[in-house]
């Protein structure tokens, strides 16, 4: 089943993969999504990545903590519809 949560994983690949997810190779996606893994099942279960939502705050915290940065941008819309990546 391709659900909204699943399409989030299409966009963000393994970064957002939930514990319940499984990925399989897929064709060109809708909305111009590039070829890549297609989420076949997803639930918003369990903890995920703790994302900072803005660059300035993340950079300041990375400098302070001397931690490397995992950077992944994404558009919170698909075909101009919110609530989906």
């Amino acid at each position, binding site marked *: 089943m391709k659900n*909204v949560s699943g399409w989030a994983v299409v966009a963000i690949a*393994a970064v957002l993969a939930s514990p319940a997810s499984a990925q399989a190779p897929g064709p060109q996606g809708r909305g111009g999504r590039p070829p890549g893994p297609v989420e076949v099942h997803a639930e918003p279960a369990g903890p995920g990545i703790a994302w900072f*939502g803005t660059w300035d705050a993340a950079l300041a915290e*990375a400098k302070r903590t001397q931690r*490397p940065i995992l950077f992944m941008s994404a*558009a919170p819309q698909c075909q101009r*519809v919110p609530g989906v990546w």
Partner: protein
Amino acid sequence: MNEVVEASRAFVCVRPQTYEDAEEAKVLAYVFEGRSGLENTSFALLDPEGKKLTAGSRSPTMAYGAVERFVEALKSTAAKYADDAKSIDALPTLRDLRLALNVAAADMRPLVVVRGKDKDAAAALARKVAKLAWSKELVGTSHYVVLQAPETFEGLAPELGVSVVLPDPYGLGGKVLAHAKPDADAKALAKALTDGVAQHSVEPREHDDHIREARRRGIEWKSPIPVSDPHVPERDR
């Protein structure tokens, strides 16, 4: 916890929202830019000063192919910084309530709204929430936004204090699941956060139904920056 999430804990993780801020867009372009400009997504690992450690690409999948290779890259990168790394203390917030509701809806996560009577009160409350946000029980469970009292949003007007919100499917509003008053002590605050997260539940949604219903209801997201992803057809930008 899956391996990617587990490995991510050694990093400061940031997910800027593409096409939503002109200044931030410059950073996105530094990380990865296609021939037509910004693409919907960009990915890289960066050092603590924000310089690229890896080539920028559209996604971890394009950079590493297999999840296992991505996890290995995360672990090996983190190991180089482990000796000097300090604990993350700052609350990982989103830019504003409109974006925060949208992102939380898209991720199917609760949104924690921290609202103070003024800037200083909001910042002080955010520091209290931050201590809990990075706890073992709550890390990675929610999104956060910090507001001052005058800020309002159609469809959602949480009280002063800390509200755990269930966003509606399009992030246009939401329902308050749990609330702690501004003067709540750490115990009461922790209870509100854990209760809210525990109550949060969403039904999986079919992508096509989600889009179709938005079209029917006239729901449309407008980004400040034009969508330039060459993979997105003109009619959908």
